[in-house]
């Protein structure tokens, strides 16, 4: 038992690596703060284009984009963008490569969620707003989008959690975020405690969010909505 504790939960190692892990965590948080808004904005733009355009071609193009990037494992996309672009003379820094590849795929997911939310708002809402003289843009901003966002909030949060977790892929590009820091500490100290600690940090951060979504969903089920 003591051996297991010393191996996986070694206090001395934990204390030693904590500063390193915290700076890794800071990097993780910064990446998430960059990637999540980018994806959300991209997704919102796509969803608005999809729902507001009259052109069938635009809608088909957006569907293709969304399905294409939904079919791409995130890691494959990250690797492709960062390792294939140098062959044509484009050197992307890891952050940029990561941001581009995440933006491409997460905007597809956000688009799906928001599009479903927008199309679920009854036409009567738009008609009522337009009948009072509000413009199409005002109607979207004050009537349709607030309701759509509220209705799909659990899905938006769930997707954002997935993206936050996805920042761990940055370790593959050698960016010293939380997982990478833990891995390097583990290989230097020959002890897995840093990995356990990193997992615990993710858990501490995201468990409340996961709980919140579950609670939100079950309360909506109870309301029959």
């Amino acid at each position, binding site marked *: 038992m003591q051996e297991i504790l010393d191996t996986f939960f070694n206090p001395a190692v934990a204390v030693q690596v904590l500063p390193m892990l915290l700076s890794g965590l800071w990097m993780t948080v910064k990446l998430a703060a960059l990637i999540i808004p980018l994806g959300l904005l991209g997704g919102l733009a796509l969803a608005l284009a999809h729902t507001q355009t009259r052109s069938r071609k635009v809608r088909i193009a957006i569907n293709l984009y969304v399905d294409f990037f939904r*079919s791409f494992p995130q890691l494959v996309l990250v690797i*492709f963008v960062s*390792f*294939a672009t140098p062959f044509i003379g484009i050197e992307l820094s890891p952050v940029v490569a990561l941001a581009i590849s995440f933006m491409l795929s997460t905007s597809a997911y956000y688009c799906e969620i928001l599009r479903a939310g927008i199309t679920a708002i009854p036409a009567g809402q738009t008609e009522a707003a337009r009948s009072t003289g509000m413009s199409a843009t005002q109607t979207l901003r004050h009537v349709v989008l607030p309701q759509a966002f509220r209705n799909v909030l659990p899905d938006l949060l769930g997707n954002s959690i997935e993206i936050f977790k*996805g920042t761990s892929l940055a370790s593959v590009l050698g960016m010293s975020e939380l997982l990478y820091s833990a891995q390097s500490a583990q290989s230097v100290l020959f002890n897995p405690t840093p990995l356990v600690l990193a997992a615990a940090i*993710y858990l501490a951060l995201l*468990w409340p969010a996961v709980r919140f979504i579950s609670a939100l969903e079950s309360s909506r089920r109870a309301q029959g909505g």
Partner: protein
Amino acid sequence: MSQAADSGLIHTFFNADIVRQTSPMVMEAVGQTIAIGVLVIVAGILLGTALATWRFHTQSRVLRALIVGYVDVLRAMPPLVILILVYFALPYVNISIGSVLATFLCLSVILSAFIEECVWSGIMTLPKGQMEAARSTGMSWWQSMRHVILPQALRLSLPQITNRCIAAIKNTALGSVIGFAEILGSAQAASSDYANPTPLTLCAILYIGLIYPLVLASRYLEHRAGIR
């Protein structure tokens, strides 16, 4: 773009020679990826459904909390972290599992957590009267579950379950990080051997060929659910 530059791009990103030379290796990886993907889906769905049923059946609050805790923990941790933890930490206590087995175990367990959540939400959406009606005809709790509740719950959550299975298949690519030569892993190896990105392009095409039909299927299922 000029024609020369155009063919240059193709020469770089989709070099026919390199495709020919590396495709046996990559195709073997495709078989492995599909095999692992199918196994993960079967194991994940079975385990997840069993957990949801258990959570519904048990009267013990402790047990219910444990199941919810299991689900939450696996939903809150990045799959890559779980994979690396299992693969690199277990050897310290002399448990050594290969990268294929580690990938299979981790992805199955993660998928089971998400499936539990989907099935549970399906069960909760069903009207209480369903179980009562089934029991009133003399069926046992398990019979009611098997013939009345679960079929409906699974069907209600089919779109979400499909999406989760797609995510699980995509996560097989994470195996490359611990040295499982699935599609991405073998493509990366080939790409550095030949100093050419063609294997990576091939890998991307293969993944899309593999998963795109599933994405279309999930779109169809969502569409059908929306109509009902």
